[in-house]
C-alpha cells in the first residue's frame, strides 16, 4: 500500500535520513521504533508531505506521491496524528473534529463524528469546550480522532504515547489495535518500543537516519539486541 524507497531528507545542509526503505501492506500495523533523534518524525513528515524530500520516492497505492503537497494527500487516504498532538487550541473539540473531515463535505461527516465520540466518550462530554483546555491524554485522543475523521486508509501516528500516564498509554494502544477491524492500515512511530511492538504486525528499528533492523514484531521483541537497546530488559 505504502512504499518508501531510498528516501533522503535534510534540514539545511545536514542530511537526517540516509536512504530509507520501508513498506506497509494493506491492513497491517507497522511500527518504526528507535531512540530520540533517530529521524522517525522526519520520516513520517516526509510521508505526510510536511517535510521536503531530498531524494528517493514515496509511492501510495502504486502512485508516486513524492511531490504531492500535504493537503492533497488527505484525499488520497493518508492522514496523520502529528507529534505533540498539534490540535487547534483556539477551536472547540467538535470544530477540531469537523476540520479533520475538511476535505469531505458530505453527510457522512456526522456519522464519523458519532463514531469518534463512541471511540472516545470523553470527547463527547467536552465537545463544545475549547480544545486548548483538554488534558494531555484528551488532546492525544482528539488528535487521533481528528486524523480518523479524514477517513484514512493509511493512518500515520507519531508518538501517541508521549508524555502520557501508563494507564492512558495502554488505552491509546488498545484503540490503535482496534483500527484493524476498521480497515485502517497503521504506521506507528514510537519510542515506547515494547508497547508498539506488542500491537504491531511488523517493525522497523531506526538509528541515526537509517533502518538497522526489520522483521515480524514478535521476532523483534524476542531479539536480544532489541531487548537490550530498546526494551531495557
Amino acid at each position, binding site marked *: 500500500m505504502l512504499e518508501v524507497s531510498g528516501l533522503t531528507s535534510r534540514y539545511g545542509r545536514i542530511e537526517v535520513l540516509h536512504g530509507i526503505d520501508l513498506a506497509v501492506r494493506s491492513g497491517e500495523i507497522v511500527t518504526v521504533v528507535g531512540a530520540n533523534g533517530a529521524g522517525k518524525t522526519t520520516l513520517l513528515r516526509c510521508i505526510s508531505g510536511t517535510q521536503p524530500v531530498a531524494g528517493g520516492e514515496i509511492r501510495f497505492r502504486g502512485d508516486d506521491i513524492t511531490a504531492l503537497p500535504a493537503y492533497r494527500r488527505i484525499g488520497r487516504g493518508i492522514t496523520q496524528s502529528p507529534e505533540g498532538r498539534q490540535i*487547534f487550541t483556539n477551536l472547540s473539540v467538535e470544530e477540531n473534529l469537523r476540520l479533520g473531515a*475538511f476535505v469531505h463535505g458530505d453527510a457522512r461527516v456526522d456519522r464519523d463524528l458519532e463514531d469518534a465520540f463512541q471511540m472516545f466518550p470523553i470527547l463527547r462530554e467536552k465537545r463544545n469546550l475549547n480544545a486548548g483546555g483538554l488534558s494531555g491524554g484528551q488532546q492525544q485522543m482528539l488528535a487521533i480522532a481528528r486524523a480518523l475523521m479524514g477517513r484514512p486508509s493509511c493512518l500515520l501516528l507519531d508518538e501517541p504515547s508521549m508524555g502520557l500516564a501508563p494507564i492512558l498509554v495502554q488505552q491509546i494502544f488498545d484503540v490503535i489495535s482496534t483500527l484493524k477491524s476498521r480497515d485502517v492500515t497503521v504506521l506507528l512511530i514510537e519510542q515506547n518500543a515494547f508497547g508498539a511492538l506488542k500491537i504491531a504486525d511488523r517493525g522497523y528499528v531506526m538509528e541515526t537516519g537509517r533502518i538497522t533492523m526489520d522483521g515480524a514484531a514478535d521476532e523483534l521483541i524476542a531479539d536480544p539486541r532489541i531487548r537490550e537497546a530498546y526494551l531495557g530488559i
Partner: protein
Amino acid sequence: MPELLQFLFSGLTVGAVYALVALGFTIIYNASDVVNFAQGEFVMLGGMITVFAHAAGLPLLLAAGIAIAATAVIGVALNKLAIEPARGAPVVSLIIITIGASIFLRGVASLVFDKQIHRFPAFSGDAPFRIGGATILPQSLWVIAGGVAVFIALWLFFTRTLTGKAVLATSNNRLAAQLVGINTNWVMTLSFALSAAIGALAGVLATPITNTSYDVGIALALKGFAAAMLGGMGNPKGALVGGILLGILEALTAGYLSSQYKDAAAFIVILLVLFIMPQGLFGARQTERV
C-alpha cells in the same frame, strides 16, 4: 441635548469607518497573526480608484465595484509577492513588510493618480435627516449600515462556515491545518482578498463624507489598529465595538473639549483599557495546556 446627539451621530459615522478598517485587520490577523499595516492603503485605493473611474465616465456603482475588485487583486498581489516569499519569517518581520508595502502603495498612488483631494457624490444626496434636533447625513447611514453588514457577514463566516474555521485553524497551527487537508496558501490568498475588499468598501462608503487623497491610508490604519486593539484583535465583535467607541470618544472630546485633543483623549482611553484588559474588551483569553 441636541448637541450630545449631534456628537454621537458624527462619532458613530467616523466610528463605523474605523470599525470597517478594524474588521479588515481581523481576517488577515486570524489567518496569520500578521497585523497588516497596508490595510489603510486599501481604504485609500477603494476611494481613489472609484474617484478616477467615476471621473472617466463610469456610473458610480460600477466604479465602486471596480475599485473593490481591483483592490482585492492588489491585496492578493501583496500576499503573493511580499508575504508568501517570506514565509517562515517571524511575525514581526512580516508586519514590517506590510509597513513597507503601505509606503510603496502610497507612493505609487501619488504617481498613478495625483496629490489632490478628491470626492465623489454621496449615494443618496446631501440633504440631512433631522432627528431630535440633530442632523445626520444619508451617507452616514450608508457607512454605518456597511459596517454592520460586514460585521454580520464576518461573524457568520468565522462561526458558521467550515472555510472560516479553516482560516482560524491556519493561524492557530499551520502544520496541523495542512495535515487535515487545508491548502494554507489558498487560505492566505483568500484572507488578503477579503481584507482588501473590505478596506476598499470602507473607502467607497466614507469618501463622500471624509474626502480622499493618496495619503489618507496611514491615519486610517493607525485608528483602525487602535480600534482593533481596544476591542480585542481578531474578534469581529471587538472590531465593531472598538471602532464605534473610538469614533464616539473622538467626537465627544472634539465637541466638549477641543478638536485638538481628540486623538490624545482616544489614545489615553485605549491605554487605560489595555492596562486593565490586555486582551482588549472582547479578546480571547489564552488558555492552553501542554
